[in-house]
């Protein structure tokens, strides 16, 4: 029996097919479908194949004729050297493989993944003899200068700060990534403070000689002025309640990464840093009650060195790392410094982060759970301790290491008993609800609206209101718009705005 559209020609064809299959013509006659009964329900849009490997068919036997590659022709690479492209391909002239070989199928994506090309097309043409082919790789290059970060704002600590971080992912067409940034922060009204500046240079290779290894190295110079509260109530951020000390940091960091799988990477690193701080002789803080407390600024006076080694793991199963609606990201990091490896600080830091996203409403919305925490042990230098802005998005983040604002965190719950910018233990848990706003723009690829709320905590183990009396914690709120654009990713959020102005 057939049933379908009231289309005479197709009905005839259906009958013919039915007859050809041995079914009676009468049984094959189509029945018109009623015009409008039933509710108008839109069936869910199935996820694409890549989203659900379980729906994929099992791989079959070899398919396609055997080939011998006579050569590789590269077309359209004006600034990228042919060597960079050839190293990325997993085949070489003289190699035998089938036309269906996985290395041929993946070649286009490996080239796109370099980030150097807007389009990549691969074709074959006949080679010197039967069965021989020449692979023709046609690329359309794209701009490879990437804006990584922008810093700007104003606060009582700095009249204004401005800076940017950019990368060239394909330096001189060599495939090597080079980047750097600089920040300048004008002096604010805090006594003993000064104008601040920081600069950084980076170099890295995302794939070393076709292996799973990668490496990056960075050199950073910071001329800073670190504020600390000397008196006043927590909600009083007037410059008169702060003092500052000058410091200078010069350091290098090198990291080597290894891709264990498509989703998991491990990395090891080392850092060497020379610090020079001019600390006050006996810093104190006067509480509103009149009590005077000594302050530990967690740095050596004068010159000191930090030397660390680190190991980390990163597992990321999110399909879209920019605007995720599903998947999980786990990050673990352990870093230790010891006098035995040329440092003056004997300490360790462990940090962990978990982001988990659950799609809802056909994947157009999502619920995210974001957990992050860190702890330091031993004599950690001030800049390695957990900073308030790391656990509370409503606080101005440090700009390339510079503290450009000293606002206290909003005390929604009245649970915050201290006002230190850094702590030994800190973390946050945030739940976000994300709604897809649009997809598919030409220059602005995608946008999501989100609203999030959660709790954060930051404490020192020896402080009166710390672990023994319950970890001080408070709320963090955020909402706004995330945009994935051709230039980079932009967040227009409440917390982001709060972090750029004095309030």
């Amino acid at each position, binding site marked *: 029996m057939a049933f379908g559209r009231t289309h005479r020609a197709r009905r005839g064809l259906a009958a013919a097919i*039915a007859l050809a299959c041995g079914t009676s013509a009468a049984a094959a006659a189509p029945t018109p479908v009623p015009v409008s009964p039933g509710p108008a*329900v839109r069936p869910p849009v199935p996820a694409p194949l890549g989203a659900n490997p379980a*729906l994929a068919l099992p791989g079959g036997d070899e398919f*396609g004729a055997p080939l011998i590659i006579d050569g590789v022709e590269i077309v359209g690479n004006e600034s990228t050297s042919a060597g960079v492209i050839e190293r990325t391909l997993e085949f070489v002239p003289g190699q035998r493989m089938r036309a269906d070989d996985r290395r041929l199928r993946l070649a286009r994506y490996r080239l796109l*993944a370099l980030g150097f090309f807007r389009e990549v097309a691969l074709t074959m043409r006949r080679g010197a003899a039967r069965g021989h082919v020449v692979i023709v790789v046609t690329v359309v290059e794209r701009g490879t200068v990437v804006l990584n970060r922008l810093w700007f704002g104003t606060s009582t600590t700095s009249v204004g700060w401005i800076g940017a971080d950019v990368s060239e992912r394909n330096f001189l067409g060599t495939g090597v990534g080079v*980047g750097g940034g600089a920040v300048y922060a004008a002096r604010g009204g805090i006594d003993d403070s000064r104008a601040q500046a920081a600069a950084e240079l*980076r170099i890295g290779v995302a794939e070393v000689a076709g292996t799973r290894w990668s490496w990056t190295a960075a050199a950073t110079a910071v001329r800073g002025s670190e504020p600390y509260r000397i008196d006043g109530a927590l909600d009083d951020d007037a410059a008169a309640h702060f003092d500052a000390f000058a410091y200078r940091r010069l350091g290098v960091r090198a990291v080597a990464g290894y891709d264990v799988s*498509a989703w998991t990477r491990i990395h090891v690193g080392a850092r060497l840093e020379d610090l020079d701080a001019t600390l006050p002789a006996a810093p104190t803080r006067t509480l509103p009650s009149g009590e005077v407390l000594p302050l530990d600024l967690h740095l050596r006076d004068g010159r000191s060195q930090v030397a660390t080694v680190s190991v980390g793991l990163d597992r990321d199963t999110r399909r879209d790392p920019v605007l995720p609606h599903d998947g999980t990201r786990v990050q673990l990091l352990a870093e230790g410094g010891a006098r035995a490896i040329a440092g003056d600080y004997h300490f360790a830091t462990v940090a962990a982060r978990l982001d988990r996203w659950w799609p809802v409403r056909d994947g157009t919305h999502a619920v995210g759970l974001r957990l992050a925490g860190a702890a330091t042990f031993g004599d950690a230098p001030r800049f390695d301790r957990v*900073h308030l802005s790391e656990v509370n998005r409503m606080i101005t983040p440090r700009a390339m290491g510079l503290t450009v604002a000293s606002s206290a965190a909003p005390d929604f719950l009245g649970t915050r008993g201290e006002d230190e910018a850094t702590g030994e233990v800190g973390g946050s848990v945030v739940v976000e609800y994300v709604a897809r706003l649009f997809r598919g723009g030409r220059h602005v690829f995608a946008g999501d609206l989100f609203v999030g709320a959660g709790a954060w905590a930051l404490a020192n183990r020896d402080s009166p209101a710390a672990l023994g009396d319950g970890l001080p914690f408070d709320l963090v709120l955020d909402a706004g718009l995330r945009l994935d654009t051709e230039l980079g990713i932009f967040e227009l959020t409440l917390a982001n705005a709060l972090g750029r102005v004095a309030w």
Partner: protein
Amino acid sequence: MRAAAAAALVALAVAARPAHAEDAPAIVGMDFTERAGAITVDASVSRLFDRDAFANLDSGFRTTVVIRLWVYRVDDAQPIAFTVLRRSCIYQLWDEVYDLRLEGEGRRRDVRVKTRGEALKVLTSLDDVRVAAAAALPPGALHVLAVVAELNPVSAETLAEVHRWLSQGTGGGLDRGGSFFGSFVSVFVNLKVPEADRVLRLRSQRFFRP
């Protein structure tokens, strides 16, 4: 500043297209037949191919079309039945023929055709494709068939590798904060490697078993 931010948000929200616009399936007429205890469909997904994709059948590289079909009751979001077909085509440069492999419905067969047009037809025609057991569709109940066809879909693993390659090279600095806590993502430019070259979403008219 807050007013400006609010205005910007509103402007973006107004300018942006609805979330479902690009996902909405096109409704096309399809022919359904019941025979031998199964519901079969006749349709075509030839619109999956544009001019470039059609020309690319001559590239010598494999072209793959994956077609997935779901049968739903119109008032229920849970599919009654699911079918997946995979069809591949490779042009043999020296023999000037198109080799096709058709997989699905529990079998596989290889076909050789001489012209690109024939290859396109074999890749995109749904001729008498079994989409559900007839017994799964109660007589009189309204159903629809949802079809998603993908041209050269990319596996989840390949996409993950691409994302991983993209995310490298942005780290550095003296402090963990910027890369570990501070930034929402570690990839700052999304290079938009698509999950498939093209995707076609179709929905049939409502149909029922008399």
